[in-house]
């Protein structure tokens, strides 16, 4: 009887794992505003998406929707949730442009409380050989903002100013981090996480950002209580087993 139960549980677990593997990609989306001109959509519609693990997807693509702006990306996401990857934007116009770029991922399941960590790093390049390139914050704000349910929960690179002063030159910048090595506490997250990039970029130049935003659930108190009870229960059982073993040893 017991073996039949084990078999049925095993079959159920196998079926669950197979169906998990076939889960469709989450609706990971982006929006790009270039000097207020908006564009964007579902990331999967502008490239490829590959499932790399039961809950992880790799998105690659490019976008030329806003006139004079070239955008390309490669992002690994997990609705469990994290968002991490790299994008490159090139301002192909003749004037400095303000960019606001959001990458947003629906979360599943919702997090009643969260632990957050994030980081950003990048490069700025004089792509047109003019001898200079400039990347700055917009009105001194964050270049990187971690979003939870469309609200900013953490920010990096406030008052940023990165510049290149040599022809065809490149500069690298480490934009800082939060929650490394110890994650910081965050809010409950019900619908989505994301990363917002907001910056001004000089004409003819390129910027590339690699970034991470991870939200880990904090176990709810009830889960902790259940965990404690399970721990106490197994300890008690271990003690009983030991007692039985002792008795058996004494008898023999």
């Amino acid at each position, binding site marked *: 009887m017991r073996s039949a139960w084990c078999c049925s549980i095993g079959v159920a677990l196998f079926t669950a794992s197979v169906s998990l593997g076939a889960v469709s990609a989450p609706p990971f989306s982006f929006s790009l505003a270039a000097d207020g001109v908006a564009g964007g959509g579902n990331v999967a519609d502008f490239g*490829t998406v*590959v499932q*790399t693990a039961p809950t992880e997807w*790799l998105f*690659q693509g*490019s976008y030329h929707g806003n006139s004079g702006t*070239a955008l*390309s990306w*490669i992002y*690994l996401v997990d609705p469990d949730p*994290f968002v*991490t*990857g*790299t994008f*490159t934007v*090139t301002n*192909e116009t003749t004037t400095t442009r303000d960019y606001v770029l959001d990458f947003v991922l629906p979360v599943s399941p919702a997090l009643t409380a969260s632990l957050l*960590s994030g*980081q*950003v*790093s*990048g*490069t700025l*390049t*004089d*792509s*047109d*050989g003019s001898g200079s390139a400039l990347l700055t914050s917009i009105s001194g704000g964050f270049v990187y903002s971690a979003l939870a349910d469309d609200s900013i929960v953490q920010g990096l690179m406030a008052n940023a100013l990165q510049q290149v002063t*040599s*022809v*065809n*030159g*490149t*500069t*690298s*910048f*480490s934009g800082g*981090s939060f929650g*490394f*090595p110890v994650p910081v506490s965050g809010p409950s997250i019900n619908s989505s996480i994301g990363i917002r990039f907001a910056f001004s970029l000089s004409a003819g130049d*390129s910027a*590339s950002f*690699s*970034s*991470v935003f*991870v939200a880990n659930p904090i176990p709810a108190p009830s889960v902790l209580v259940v965990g404690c009870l399970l721990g106490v229960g197994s300890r008690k059982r271990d003690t009983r087993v030991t007692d039985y073993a002792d008795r058996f040893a004494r008898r023999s």
Partner: protein
Amino acid sequence: MTLNPFHHSQVRSTSVALLVGLFVSGPAFGAFAPGGFSVAVVSTAGSTTPTNTVAPVSATTWAATGGWTFGGASVSWTNNTQGWNSLTSTGFTSGNVVIRNESAAAQDYTITIGMTGVAAGPLVVSGSVGGQFLNTSFGLGSLTSSGPLWSALVDGATARNEFNNTLVFAQPFQIISLGNANFSNVVVPTSTASTLAIRLSVRMSAGSEASFTSTFAFQAVPAPGAIALITVAGMFGRRLRRR
């Protein structure tokens, strides 16, 4: 606008056009063809043909966007390349390459981005590279290079090496900035050049990603004859303006 044969700007543009005409009437490689851009990927993950789309950005510059994927390893790029200018033997390539290893083991990658044409040497080259390494695995990630990670090549010969013997480690979900390197006014003593290229050679651990932005530009060192011709043209233009 009425045509005034003695207007300064018109005289200047006439003499410049004459000069351009003299040079362009020779070899006809002033117009850049998209076929002049090439990408090759060699990886221990396996072998397959990259996909690449080339579209014009301006009259002389083309944007190449493409990718290569095999066995969990992938490379994607967006690269702008300017055509070889027959007047000055100038050109450049500038862009971003993202390398990703989603396979279960460390992989080697060699990516070569080339531009082809005919340039009269000697050349003066300049360029730069910068990048970052991102570990998206739950173990320690690493990026290494045996020798130069980034090289600028002229007809297969090294013009410049950067990021020699790189060794970088990253904790899970950590980004490491690889820094940047810039160079300019490096003279390449070649009489002619037909292929200029950027090469990235790197080994990356499973579940990691590296992004590199780099530029490579070249310009011919003006020959004495060309300098004399430009001087004569300038004097000719000045004389016209005086009249």
